[in-house]
């Protein structure tokens, strides 16, 4: 192989057309998936977006402290119970005032999947024209690593510990993105940090599609502190999640699902779990349950993505 000194510069750099609005030293843990994501979004979508969000790992940085701020974006801090309702208010105000902008409701899985799910679902039904981004670190990390609706089966958290009478979460995770896609909103998609080109495309598409209404992005953003893996592995954990179909990448326009990445010969889910401490106690039986869950969700996605072509409707009555 000829050793060329210079390769091609990653095309992802071309997507980053705007400045990073964050100050350089902000208080996220080393290797934080959320930090990579939150700096990526305005670099791709522009610095003139208006963000709103809730108490979470993102809040200390997005809200600011005392009378100073960590970034130059517009941010509206609100409560977990009403995140999407607040975003609705913002976007309606801008529309009435004739200001064209992009409202991004940026929340963790605790708000999106549990506490603020009701009003998010309402905003989706009313088709409010803003972008909801859920960064999914599979639990309430900021308050001390409690389980959430997206915490997977078997994962050890402080409320589902490995202790006497408990062996991690004994419930399966919910598929939030699929729920939202089934609301037939103009755009729903999943993305992760190992596939930044794919993420950038989906962010730009959401910015475009929000003129038709509610857009939902579910971004898998691992947490080294809460999950117990080496911070250097954050992107690798995302990659493994995609390669094992633990977190498949797809998008749905008006509920029509299309896979944006199909994995040939997926690795078993053990490959994904291997570097992560929250899965360390699981035995073969538990792993089989998780694998079954992953396979089931993939089948569901696969089935839905061919639905229209294959589905034979019963003949109508005369």
């Amino acid at each position, binding site marked *: 192989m000829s050793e*060329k*000194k*210079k*390769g*091609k*510069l*990653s095309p*992802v*750099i071309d997507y*980053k057309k*705007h*400045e*990073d*609005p*964050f*100050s*350089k*030293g*902000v*208080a*996220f843990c*080393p*290797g*934080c*998936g959320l*930090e*990579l994501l939150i*700096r990526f979004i305005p670099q791709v979508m*522009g*610095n*003139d977006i*208006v963000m709103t969000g809730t108490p979470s790992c993102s809040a200390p940085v997005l*809200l*600011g*402290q*005392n*009378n*100073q*701020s*960590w*970034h*130059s*974006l*517009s*941010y*509206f*801090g609100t409560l977990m119970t009403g995140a999407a309702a607040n975003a609705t208010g913002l976007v309606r105000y*801008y529309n009435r005032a004739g*200001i064209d*902008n992009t409202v991004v409701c940026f929340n963790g899985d605790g708000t999106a999947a549990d506490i603020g799910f009701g009003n998010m679902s309402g905003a989706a039904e009313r088709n409010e024209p803003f972008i909801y981004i859920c960064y999914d670190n599979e639990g309430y990390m900021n308050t001390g690593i409690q389980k959430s609706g997206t915490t997977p089966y078997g994962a050890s958290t402080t409320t589902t510990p490995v202790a006497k009478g408990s062996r991690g979460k004994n419930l399966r995770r919910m598929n939030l993105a699929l729920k939202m896609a089934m609301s037939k909103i103009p755009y729903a998609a999943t993305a992760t*940090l190992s596939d*930044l080109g794919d993420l950038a495309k989906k962010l730009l598409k959401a910015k475009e599609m929000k003129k038709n209404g509610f857009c939902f992005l579910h971004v898998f953003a691992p947490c*080294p502190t809460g999950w117990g893996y*080496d*911070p*250097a*592995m*954050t*992107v*690798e954990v995302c990659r493994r999640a995609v390669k094992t179909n633990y977190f498949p990448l797809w998008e749905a326009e008006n509920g029509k699902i299309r896979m944006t990445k199909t994995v040939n010969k997926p690795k078993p889910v053990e490959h994904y779990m291997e570097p992560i401490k929250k899965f360390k106690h699981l035995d073969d039986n538990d792993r089989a349950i998780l694998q079954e869950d992953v396979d089931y969700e993939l089948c569901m996605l696969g089935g839905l993505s061919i639905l229209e072509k294959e589905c034979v409707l019963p003949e109508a009555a005369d």
Partner: protein
Amino acid sequence: MSKNTYFKHEGPWSDANDPLMCSDTGDWRTKRPIVDKDKCIFCGFCQIYCPVQVMEMVGDSHFEADLGFCKGCGICAQECPKQAITMVSEGEFVS
């Protein structure tokens, strides 16, 4: 810098016209990323995956971390396709 045009003040008590807050996150580091200029093929993977976004282009030859803010997570070294980055213990640099 594109200034936000919607709010004069970013929030009721946070004024975005002030200089931004900034911590010396470089202090957190226990390991330092050292880039081997000769091995680097200038692909930029370290730059796109660095959560702190401190991998900077040096001309058009290689990348180097801004050590004032690099948190030492090691993602750049893990993701570099040419293994051009080594994480060296900060202890090595104490004089």
